[in-house]
């Protein structure tokens, strides 16, 4: 089966005191049709940048300096602006962490939904309005016809995220990129939103690229997980394999420092030190300075992502 999304050796750079600094340093990742892929990592690891690049939303001074992104076999990086607009919304949609700033406070939710539908489907506003009400009811907003006339501030945080998800799937895209969609929400509301995305996956056959720092959420929701660190994928594997037999020392450390219900103890494992600052020259493995099993070779040669069983690991020791 051909992958829906193929990212190959993606590189994104920003200007820095000493020239261009790469914030994304060669990311390779696939999303298959119908699959939910988790992209996890700490802040600054490049996961959001990778997603923005798929939408061709990297703004100056940032620049995609290398690699390729193919969607249904077509190169995204060489599309014209007009072609990009056709791709966004109709083929690939994205939702963000903060649902309040994603909506325009000056217009009703109905107006904003209708705009999206008219822009992408070219139907009349009257038809689009009916479609908008349908979209709200799909995402579980009660009394959708009445709610179309409400402004964003009249919705709760969870309801706003539902509206945005509705907007994102209104034009039946095949890929939904969700960038920390529940991070700003309370845990009971997070459960509602995840249940909604889960249902839409089945009903609309959506593929999902799910970006989060919450490992437990990824383990519950995703089919496959890629772990990013300092702009590169350190490990990528089916979810069960990644969490039951993590092969990269960073993945292992990350899993161990998450406190969980049902376990308690005095000391949590932690990863000493901090990630390399962007722009610092990295000759070898980016994790070397914090790695408990670092070897001489790690300082000089960056390990490539290579297959180990069902997993792919960028580590000389794996």
């Amino acid at each position: 089966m051909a992958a829906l999304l193929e990212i190959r050796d993606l590189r994104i750079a920003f200007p820095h005191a000493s020239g261009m600094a790469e914030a994304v340093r060669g990311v390779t990742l696939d999303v298959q049709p119908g699959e939910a892929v988790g992209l996890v990592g700490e802040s600054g690891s490049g996961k959001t940048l990778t997603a923005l690049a798929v939408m061709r939303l990297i703004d100056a001074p940032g620049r995609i300096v290398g690699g390729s992104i193919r969607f249904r076999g077509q190169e995204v990086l060489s599309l014209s602006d007009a072609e990009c607009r056709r791709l966004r919304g109709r083929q690939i949609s994205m939702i963000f962490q903060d649902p309040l700033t994603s909506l325009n406070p000056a217009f009703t939710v109905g107006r904003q939904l209708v705009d999206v539908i008219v822009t992408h489907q070219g139907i009349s506003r009257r038809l689009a309005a009916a479609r908008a009400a349908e979209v709200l009811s799909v995402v579980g907003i009660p009394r959708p016809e009445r709610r179309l006339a409400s402004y964003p501030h009249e919705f709760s945080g969870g309801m706003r995220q539902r509206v945005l998800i509705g907007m994102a799937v209104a034009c039946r895209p095949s890929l939904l990129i969700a960038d920390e969609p529940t991070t700003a929400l309370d845990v009971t509301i997070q459960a509602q939103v995840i249940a909604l995305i889960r249902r839409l996956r089945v009903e609309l056959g959506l593929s999902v690229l799910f970006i989060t720092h919450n490992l437990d959420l990824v383990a519950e929701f995703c089919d496959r997980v890629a772990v990013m660190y300092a702009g590169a994928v350190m490990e990528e594997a089916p979810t069960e394999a990644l969490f039951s037999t993590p092969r990269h020392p960073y993945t292992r450390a990350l899993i161990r420092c998450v406190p969980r219900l049902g376990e308690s103890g005095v000391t949590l494992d932690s990863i000493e030190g901090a990630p390399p600052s962007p722009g610092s020259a990295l000759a070898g493995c980016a994790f070397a300075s914090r790695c408990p099993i670092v070897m001489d070779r790690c300082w000089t040669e960056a390990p490539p992502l290579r297959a180990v069983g069902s997993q792919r690991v960028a580590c000389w020791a794996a």
Partner: protein
Amino acid sequence: MTAVPAPVMELTGVRKEFALRRGWLSALTDRPRTVLALDGVDLTVGEGEVIGLVGESGSGKSTLAYAMVRLVPVTGGTIRYRGVDVTHQARRPLRAFWRRVQIIFQDTHSSLNPRKTLGQALQDPLRVRGVSRAERPVEAGNLLTQVGLGPQFLHRYPHELSGGQRQRVVIARALAMSPEFLIADEPVSSLDVSLQAQILNLLMQLRARLNLSMLFVSHDLALVNHITNRVAVMYAGRIVEVGATPEVLRAPAHPYTQALIAATPKGLAGRGRAHEALAGDPPDPSSPSAGCRFAPRCPHVMPVCREVAPAAVRLSVTRATECHLFDAAAIQPADARPRGAADVALNGGTR
């Protein structure tokens, strides 16, 4: 385990109403509107105890933390610290209280003055504590060492530090007063997981070394599970359940606590489980309903819940909950009782 330590901080019936700002026109027509953030909170923190305060945004947990240090004045009830009523104490006598009770916040950026070096930031509390000018730099260096940074950081500015390092500085500044009681309001929520663990471990070491009592405010049950002895669950301005942390998390009594635990992601163990999400949103604190605040979302709601607010029911020496399901007075068939512990059993981690 069930021995109750001597109380240090005692809150009784604490209420806090915030007045809503109104335009001049509505001021003429409407009655003044208020938001009830704390609606009669009783809570006791014992000597050397770490108590977790959990709840969702708007439940009043931060307001309660601020009220405890008198950062917001309460509108009812009493706050006693070591037997002394500090609820309405004047500023001058309060200073002694503020030396013993310190608070740290979630946002490390706004907790530190960007124009002061760390050395300067630590000066003030040391001066207040009565450390001589000559000794202050040495003492400041010691404090930074205690939190794992060291004296080489004395001349750095906050922007030169990472979020985790800044939280360490904030902790050092709180320790500068040699407090007995530390209130931590979501101290690791803005940090990445690898740094979260470092800060939590640091707090636990300091707690043991300095014999601190602590109130740990968090929305994350897993964190609370890791570091607290006792936990209080807040919903809409009230504490709906309180008890020893392992007991509450293993066999939650209140339906809201059950929902909170059910909604918390559990890693691989949570794959394929039934995902029933609690419906609805938390109530609007400016228009409280009669009866139990949780009634509109409660899967076990009974007619009485919509009319009468439940009183606290003692379940054991250390355990209490506010729920009509546990009222002897509210006679109901046995099957209306909340699901047993088995249904909401915590699955193990994914390790």
